């Protein structure tokens, strides 16, 4: 029966040893290990969630990028056509303007020419009048030397006046 009777000395040492072991392990051993493992587990779970989110975001980003690219393409074609239109417009406008300007210049030139011409004519007329008077004077001076011719002349002039009156 001695096997079934706990020995007091051993009981004492066992109690002491187990309490010390328990204290050491419960304070510095197991909680540190289990805490770290649980933290690591949490970290892994979190990382998985984050990774999934990141993947989703990446997919979103990709789609977004594609849509932006498509939009940019559209914009590009739009701008190009607009530019072409604008260019045409500008060219045609410029052409028209040039035409108008040309016409205007032409007109002005014409007017100027006309004015010059009239001026010249007036000048010539005046000159002609002066010349004719001079010539007439000379002619008259020569032809009216004799009496008969003077009388002829007067007569003819008178005739002429009459003629023009009738």
């Amino acid at each position, binding site marked *: 029966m*001695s*096997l*079934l*009777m*706990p*020995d*007091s*000395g*051993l*009981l*004492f*040492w*066992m*109690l002491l*040893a*187990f309490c*010390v*072991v*328990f204290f*050491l*392990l*419960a304070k*510095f*051993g*197991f*909680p*540190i*290990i*289990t805490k*770290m*493992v649980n*933290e*690591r587990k*949490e*970290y892994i779970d979190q990382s998985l969630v984050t990774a999934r989110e990141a993947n989703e975001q990446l997919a979103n980003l990709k789609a977004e990028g594609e849509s932006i690219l498509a939009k940019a393409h559209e914009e590009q074609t739009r701008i190009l056509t607009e530019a072409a239109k604008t260019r045409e417009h500008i060219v045609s406008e410029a052409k028209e303007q040039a035409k108008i300007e040309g016409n205007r210049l032409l007109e002005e030139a014409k007017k100027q020419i006309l004015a010059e011409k009239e001026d010249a004519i007036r000048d010539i007329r005046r000159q002609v009048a002066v010349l004719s008077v001079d010539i007439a004077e000379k002619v008259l001076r020569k032809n009216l030397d004799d009496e008969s011719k003077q009388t002829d002349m007067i007569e003819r002039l008178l005739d002429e006046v009459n003629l023009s009156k009738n």
Partner: protein
Amino acid sequence: MNKLRYIVVVIFSLFALNMSFAQEEHGEDVNAGEIVMEHISDSYEWHITKIGGTDIVIPLPVILYSHNSGWHVFSSHHLYPAGKEHEGFRIATEGDYEGKIVETNANGEEVRPIDISITKTVLALLINCLILVLIILGCARWYRNKKPEDPAPKGFVGFMEMFIMMVENDVIKACIGKEYKRYSPYLLTAFFFIFINNIMGIIPIFPGGANVTGNIAVTFVLALCTFIAVNVFGNKEYWKEILWPEVPTWLKFPVPIMPAIELFGIFTKPFALMIRLFANIMAGHSAILALTSIIFVTVSMGVVVNSLMTGVSFLFIIFMDCMEILVAFIQAYVFTMLSSVFIGLSRQEHAE
């Protein structure tokens, strides 16, 4: 095939060794029962082996407090062979205190002094505790200056981490429930304490081979701790279940039959834990030793029988050792699991 050949060679060499032993020891009576009892009970010295005629023994310190003469500390080799007297103390060879240190008081009666000697079991216990603390604190040391983002440990620390988490998740968490964090250090300590002591007990040479967990004082302390963990931290629901269980009133009113049974149950649960662990480990040690003794018992039956029985016993010992390794784990597991279940029962909320 190669391995098989090795095993055969080993067995045959053992046969040869055994025969030489048999011739040498012929004529000496082998008392198997005595050998087994000597091993599973405690002693004041650590007998390692016997080479030729000399015993190789580690003497251990004897620490005594006598009511007559106060404290005594001396080496145990003064007390051997059993019966030799030193400072008024001797090891009793018969009577109630057989194998224990006794002194004779004024009336001429044999009395036990207060005996806290470092016996074989105590030394083995202390060594195993040291190993356990070193292993676990060594593992915990790895985690210092580590962040959760760091990679998991490899090698031994990784194995221990897996082992610890297996016990915590599959046993403690599963049996206690959500309040498991509070009890987990105790239960893990109990598990690894029992496990390391069991395993060290299987190793046949110093510092293993002592029968620590197969000693009732050791299992008594473990069961006491579980008893405290269950009853001191038990909630109101637990005590109500014991003192006023939901049974027909006549079972609890004039004569409190059910409360008495429940109160008795408080003590039987840890008692069962104590006896289960003690008996399993003790029986394992006894079985291995008894099988080993077959070799020496059959010496007197002649060389042929002896050789044959040696082979048989050798195979059985291998089988038993493998089984004991399994038992070492299972008993630690069962103790922890049942403790967890009892704690879980003491913390349960009222279930409708």
